[in-house]
């Protein structure tokens, strides 16, 4: 079970991030999680949104290079060792994490959500599910 992540190529020049976020906001797209990987000249903005198709269309319309990647959104316990348990689960099956970032924390039930991109997505889904972790679907993500 995976969720769709948008990756946007962004040049390092003033105003690019505000352009993108404003563009999504004006089109009613809600950003649920984000991270930026950057170099001296450019960066890649990774976004989890409530409507990835619409977001992609809007950004492409403004000539951004956008790609959609399937990543995992997992629910972990918001407590010491919560993340480590999930990593152990992947490590024992020889799955490498390419990148990850925190999505949102649910204060009421003490859980947190994590976005993960690994080298072997299918294996990781199996490993995590068998390890008792909850993976979030695109549909569930919209209602969170």
């Amino acid at each position, binding site marked *: 079970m995976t969720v769709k992540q948008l990756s946007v190529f962004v*040049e390092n020049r003033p105003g690019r991030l505000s352009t993108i976020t404003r563009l999504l906001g004006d089109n009613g797209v809600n950003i649920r999680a984000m991270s930026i990987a950057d*170099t001296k*000249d*450019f*960066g890649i903005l990774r976004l989890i949104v409530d409507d990835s198709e619409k977001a992609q269309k809007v950004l492409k319309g403004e*000539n951004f*290079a*956008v790609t959609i990647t399937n990543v995992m959104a997992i629910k972990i316990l918001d407590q010491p060792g919560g993340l480590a348990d999930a990593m152990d689960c992947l490590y024992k099956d020889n799955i490498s994490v390419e990148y990850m970032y925190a999505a949102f924390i649910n204060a009421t039930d003490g859980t947190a959500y994590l976005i993960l991109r690994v080298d072997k997505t299918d294996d990781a889904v199996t490993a995590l599910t068998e390890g008792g972790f909850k993976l979030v679907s695109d549909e569930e993500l919209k209602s969170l």
Partner: protein
Amino acid sequence: METQKRFRDEKHECMSREEMKALQSEKLVKQVQHVWDNVPYYRRKMEVRGLKPTDIQSIDDLHKLPFLSKADLRDAYPYGLLGKPLDECVRIQSTSGTTGKRVVAFYTQHDVDLWEECVARAIVAAGGTDKDVCQVAYGYGLFTGGSGLHGGSHKVGCLTLPMSSGNTERQIQFMQDLGATILCCTPSYAAYIGETIKEMGISPDSLSLKAGIFGAEPWTEEMRREIEKSLGIKAYDIYGLTELSGPGVAFECEEQTGMHINEDHFIAEIINPDTGEVLPDGTKGELVFTSLDKEAFPLLRYRTRDICVLTRGKCSCGRTLVKMAKPMGRSDDMLIIRGVNVFPSQIESVLVKMAKTMPNYQIVVDRVNNTDTFDILVEVDDSMFSDTVKTYEDMQKTIANELKSVLGIRAKIKLVEPKSIPRSEGKAVRVIDKRKLHG
């Protein structure tokens, strides 16, 4: 069964070498006399060498004649090389004048006819007949692209669509509604039209296009395949210089292995650009042309500054006209960066190998602390997108390494957002040389 006409002028396009030599010799003698009588600028050049028209008896004497260069054209601007009184001239055409003063070329009606006849040969070689609909999307006006292909298309009897360049959506609409079969424009504009068609969701199969005649700027074999695929056509190269008439000095046949030079109108030589020595066929050097039939703007041994190779040999199309390879680039386009000669076409050939489609790019050269900086901006497109920085960094590295092996110097590759490099729908502006701005 009706067989398609393969040649516009079979007699001249398929002449034996001996016949061609005899024809060229006969015409050369006349052209030299015409220049001697009417162009004092060149007559003085001959006199300095102690040459008289009688010293030129055949094309074997061609090497005795002095060269004309772009600098001569500038010196003689505007009327110094005129071979006919202005009242016998009916037209001027001009270069864009990106390097120094623009070149203005003059034409009598005879010259216009000769030029259009050369273009007509190119259109026929690309499969054109009077049944075709020829869309001319070169710029019209002073630039020879539009009027040259327009005139040639008339001569062949094609239904001519004088679109000029730009307004791409209208181009595509006319292409669809009027069933254009031949597209004539710059290769970069053809690529742009192909890109737009794809964006609009139009299948190339739904178009009637079968051939394209593209020239006026350097393009690579990879770019040809890309255009052929995106438009569903066979793409033919065409070559020419405003000084000599315009496009049509040389043209490609279906073999697509070099352009046949209209030798009955233009003698081609390859010289060593440093010494002026004439080089044998098959050797790389500077292309030099001598016009044989021109009235208003006759040019003897004009140095084009194009670097290329001539090859003779039987062509499968049946033409005997000598073939010129695609020029490596004009020396006007050639950049000297850290002492190394760099042609934009070399960069292009590396870029198309890296990406699935030809990325838009721009070369930016500057001088910082007496050292040349060499940056290449490359637009990221859908075919190379990724969600990791590493992929992009690897791509930068691969392009830089490949370029280093081709050019011998290292360039800094900067990836930029799609469509962030300004596009022109006519000639692509590929080079920004800031060193010139600083003087």
